[in-house]
Each structure stands twice: as structure tokens, then as C-alpha cells.
């Protein structure tokens, strides 16, 4: 059933018209989970600045997964740190709408993202995962990320502190 034609998804670069749906997916995680450390939901308008960081070329991309004509997930490569020597490091994010989890959509999104970035001047990929999150740790490990450490109780949300695992994948030289 999971592999039936109705479950197939397609991946494409995000368009401006996706912003409301991307905000809706993100807000689910803002409101209900510690997955993101944002604590207040966004309006699509407030999220426009974030959206403007991405392009269809270069290091910073935003891809969406569509199923039945509806966006059900997205992945992005973003600036990791404002200082210029960090330009060659990008931070990855992948989020699926709750009803779209378990269909391998995150995996398809990451496959497409890594393919899109293959020719870019990127040396390291970084992902920060609020723990516990077995699904997210597993997908990152499947794509060759290694956990380099855990920032204990690095964030406070819903009245408690959460650990953050730092994952990294190095693009081998040569």
C-alpha cells in the first residue's frame, strides 16, 4: 500500500506559491514538537524573509515534495553561520507534514537535495537534531552523517530543556 501509485511523490524546487503551505508544515513542528527551537508560529508573510534565502542555483536550496498535487514536505540547505569562512558549510533541514511521514518522502527529498548540490562549492553538511528523534537520526545516518556530539539541554521549550545532537557529513576532497 505504501508503495502504490497513490503514494508516489515528486520533488521540485520550491516556488513562491508554496510559502503558505511550507509555513503550515513548519508551524506544526513549532507548535507541537521540540524539533524546531522556534517557539511561536509564523505567518506566511513573516516567513518570506526565510524563503528569500533560497535560489535554484548556489549553495542554498529549497525543494518540496508533492503528492496528489499537494506539498507534503520540504528540505533546505541554509547558511550555517554568518561568518564568511563558514560559507562552505551548509545546514540541512527536512520536514514532512505529519500525515506524510513513513512514506520515504524525507529520503527522496534528501536524495534530490544532495544531487542538486553536487557541483556546489560545499565542504561540510551539518544537521542539528533535537533529541530524542530516532527517525531523524536514522535518515541522517543513512545519508552518511555522523554524530559529532550532543549539546546537553541546549534549548528550553514547553518548560523543559532539550538535548541537541550535532550531525555532520564531510564532502571528501578529490
Amino acid at each position, binding site marked *: 500500500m505504501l508503495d502504490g501509485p497513490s503514494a508516489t511523490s515528486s520533488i521540485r524546487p520550491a516556488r513562491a506559491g508554496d510559502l503558505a503551505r511550507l509555513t503550515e508544515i513548519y508551524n506544526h513542528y513549532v507548535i507541537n514538537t521540540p524539533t524546531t527551537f522556534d517557539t511561536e508560529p509564523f505567518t506566511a508573510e513573516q516567513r518570506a524573509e526565510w524563503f528569500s534565502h533560497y535560489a535554484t542555483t548556489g549553495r542554498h536550496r529549497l525543494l518540496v515534495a508533492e503528492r496528489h498535487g499537494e506539498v507534503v514536505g520540504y528540505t533546505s540547505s541554509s547558511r550555517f553561520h554568518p561568518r*564568511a569562512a*563558514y560559507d562552505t*558549510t551548509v545546514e540541512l533541514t527536512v520536514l514532512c507534514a505529519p500525515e506524510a511521514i513513513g512514506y520515504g518522502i524525507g529520503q527522496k527529498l534528501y536524495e534530490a537535495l544532495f544531487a542538486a548540490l553536487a557541483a556546489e562549492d560545499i565542504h561540510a553538511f551539518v544537521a542539528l537534531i533535537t533529541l530524542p528523534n530516532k527517525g531523524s537520526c536514522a535518515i541522517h545516518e543513512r545519508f552518511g552523517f555522523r554524530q559529532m*556530539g*550532543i549539546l546537553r539541554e*541546549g534549548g*528550553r521549550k514547553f518548560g523543559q530543556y532539550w538535548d541537541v545532537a550535532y550531525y555532520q557529513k564531510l564532502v571528501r576532497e578529490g
Partner: protein
Amino acid sequence: MDEPKPPVRIRPATLDDLSRIVEIYNHYVIHTPITFDLEPVTVAERRPWFDQFADGGRHRLLVAEDRSNVLGYACTHQFRTKAAYDTTVETTIYCAPEATGRGVGTVLYAALFDAIAAEDIHRAVAGITLPNDASVALHERFGFAPIGVFHGVGRKFGQYWDVGWYELAL
């Protein structure tokens, strides 16, 4: 044996210190991988950075001075922008090259952690471009423990640099 050293005084930074702070910082921008800025900053460019600090709250900026000469500075600042990270601050410390090896960093950090002791801060973190034995030793002396090493995350002077991340429970 040691020459008597003039006493070092620690105080909150004022706007008048900013040009000297920028001068100290730019030494590290230009000559070292310690900071991942690549281009020297101007005082005007550094003003928004300065404005994040106050004499109360989580984000402080202290300077060490010897008579009237600022020798170094230390600060606590925002670690990441998302709100749940507010209880984690990043610490930074720089001493003028001619003032290293005099214990100025230790006095600065002692004053900084004393200043924030009553604030709603749960963790301090520091990122150190490796190798930097002096900075690692200073942080470990104040109780920082290693989180891990991000390999090759910065490119400066034509090569990639590792960054060791350290955390301190407060």
C-alpha cells in the same frame, strides 16, 4: 622573577571602547583562523554587534584594562536565533596579542561568569578553531567540557579548519 605587572581592571565596555575592541578583533581576523570572519570590520559595521550587549541580562561585554589601555574583552552573546536557544549563550574572549600570557583571559572570564551568575542561562558554549591549546586550556579551567569537533567547517587562508565545541553547565 616576573616583572611587577600593573593591575588589570575589569569593567563593562562602553561605546568609547569599540574602536579598540575592533582593533583587537581585526588582528585575529587578519592573521589567524581563530575567528571565521575573513575581512576586517569597521567600527560602524561592528556597532550592531556592540548594541546587543547591556549591563544587565544574558548578553554582556566586559573589557580588561591596564591603566587606560584596553587589553582584551570577553562577552556572552546569542548562540542561535531561534527562541528556545535563549537559555544558551555563546562566550567569546580576545586579548590583544601583546597582552596574552598574563592571565588577562582568566580574569576576564572570572568576571564574566560572575556577572551572569544570576541570569536565566542554562548553558554557555564556545567554538574554538583548532588547534588552539591556550584557548582550550582556558575554557577547560572554567569547567567547559568538549561536545565534539566539527571537521572542516571553515575555509580560511586556503585551507579548511576544524572547530571544537565546548559547553559549560551553569
